[in-house]
């Protein structure tokens, strides 16, 4: 089975983010970057399917030069090769624009299965995989925790709301968006890191892919959220803060 995994590099979780002078993006200068969490689960699912059924895992990622480190991480974990779509305006593209980039890059590969993470931890659109399926003319299922290959195609376990699940059968080729938590993530081994150095990374530029349609949805401005409640921050030593909190809960909020 030939599997493509679309992965995204995002600011590291808990990174302190600062709005830049344009008010349209964040300062990227001193950020640390990481593989998007649900994309890591998509990669893990692909590697496990390959281990069971054979085939090839190809990762594809769009972004500037720095994305190379995340691609190499995926190769070190066991992906066979990679496609890097070189583009430096990802944040200004809408979800359709990004899905178009990916579909052009994936198109000639004709994979049996394409996986994406459910949602990125930075912009959080949660749409790329579903739009990609539409552009490729393929069936899809989203929020997937488990994938089983069958005679006819796939049976996948989809997460529903409030603790419910459902199984869905679908034919191949198909696109799935993977939810976090379905598998245990692997670490790259030293051997894997060594091997990754000689694996192929095919670079395509967004210009190679052709003209970009202007976005239909425009991010005008970013800002710090307004507090919905006025939070009383209790200071002092841990003991003082804890004692003050119990007092507040008892006599002010009256919940104890």
């Amino acid at each position: 089975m030939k599997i493509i995994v679309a992965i995204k590099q995002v600011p590291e979780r808990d990174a302190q983010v600062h709005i830049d002078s344009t008010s349209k993006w964040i300062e990227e200068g001193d950020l640390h970057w990481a593989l998007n969490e649900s994309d890591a689960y998509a990669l893990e699912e692909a590697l496990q399917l390959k281990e069971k059924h054979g085939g090839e895992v190809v990762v594809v990622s769009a972004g500037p030069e720095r994305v190379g480190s995340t691609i190499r991480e995926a190769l070190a974990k066991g992906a066979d090769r990679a496609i890097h779509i070189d583009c430096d305006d990802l944040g200004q593209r809408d979800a359709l624009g990004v899905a178009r980039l990916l579909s052009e890059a994936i198109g000639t590969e004709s994979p049996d299965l394409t996986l994406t993470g459910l949602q990125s931890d930075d912009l959080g659109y949660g749409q790329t995989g579903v739009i990609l399926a539409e552009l490729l003319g393929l069936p899809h299922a989203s929020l997937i925790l488990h994938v089983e290959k069958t005679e006819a195609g796939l049976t996948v376990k989809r997460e529903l709301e409030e603790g419910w699940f459902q199984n869905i059968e679908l034919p191949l080729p198909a696109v799935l968006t993977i939810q976090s938590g379905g598998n245990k993530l692997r670490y790259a081994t030293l051997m894997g890191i060594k091997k990754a150095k000689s694996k192929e990374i095919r670079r395509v530029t967004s210009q190679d892919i052709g003209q970009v349609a202007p976005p239909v949805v425009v991010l005008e401005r970013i800002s710090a959220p307004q507090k919905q409640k006025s939070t009383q921050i209790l200071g002092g030593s841990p003991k003082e803060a804890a004692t003050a909190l119990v007092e507040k809960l008892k006599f002010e909020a009256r919940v104890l």
Partner: protein
Amino acid sequence: MSGVWVVLEERNGRIARMSWEALAAGHALGAQVSLPVNAVLPGAQTVSMAAEIATKAVAKVVRLEHALLADYTSDAFTLALEQFIRAEQPDCVVFPHTYQVRDYVPALAARFGQVLIGDVTGIGGGPLFVRQLMQGRLNGEYRHSGDGTCFVSVQSGAFRADQAESGSATVEIFTPKIEQSQIRTKPGQPFRGSAQTVDLGSAQFIVSVGRGIKEAENLPIVQELATALGAELAASRPICDSGWLPIERQVGSSGQTVSPKLYLAVGISGAIQHLVGMKGSQCVVAINKDPDAPIFEIADYGIVGDLFDVVPALTEAVKTAKH
């Protein structure tokens, strides 16, 4: 163009709360752009639910009805809504941001060369649509450009369902053309992940733990606080994903929705998916080392500090107060 259309969602023969919230958002948007607000309900048997929607202040209710819409599939719903939108040419279509909407509306919008503005928490002048970025650390304001249909979905709890005023609308029917052969996926019946042994929904006190706890071995310090308070122990998604607590103790969009008297969030940053599950709590306390964590935006009381120092101190303070 024909104004604002709100697409409501059937859940077990009923209109769920989030759909009424989407209707309230549709009204906020309709007022903003001075356009009439209408409702459309896809499904296989929509008569009684459509009658209920018609008692709200909407111009028109359309039953988008077909036998193949009985069990949700992305293909059937995309086809049905695509045909309806081509016929009706709405200015804006508003959806509740449910798992179902997330599964098909991005593809539906793409069919029109459009992009869903998803998980919207507010609608400002322009209109500008506000949604969260960076796990709730920032807000983004989005504008729809061009003159095609604008697709919007609304976050759970962002608009108040009871703001939908009453009225008396006409009900019409629209029958889409869908063939069984066009449906490529085969959905199974929903099932529960595991037997429910805790009912967080009725708990009065909840101590909830997140990534800040670092290791499963550290959970006892939070359990001791929960025991001292007589509280149920709950968790954010990463803790259950790691298998440190069972999934039935997970609070958030994919877990339980809770509304206790006291919700104490320990080492939880407060991503949107978690907040939608607990923001109905009467009193929220957050303990986190990061003063910019989004959880502080909805907390009544906060302690900024290392949970490994603060939680044991709080357990002692609670024990002392109870004696």
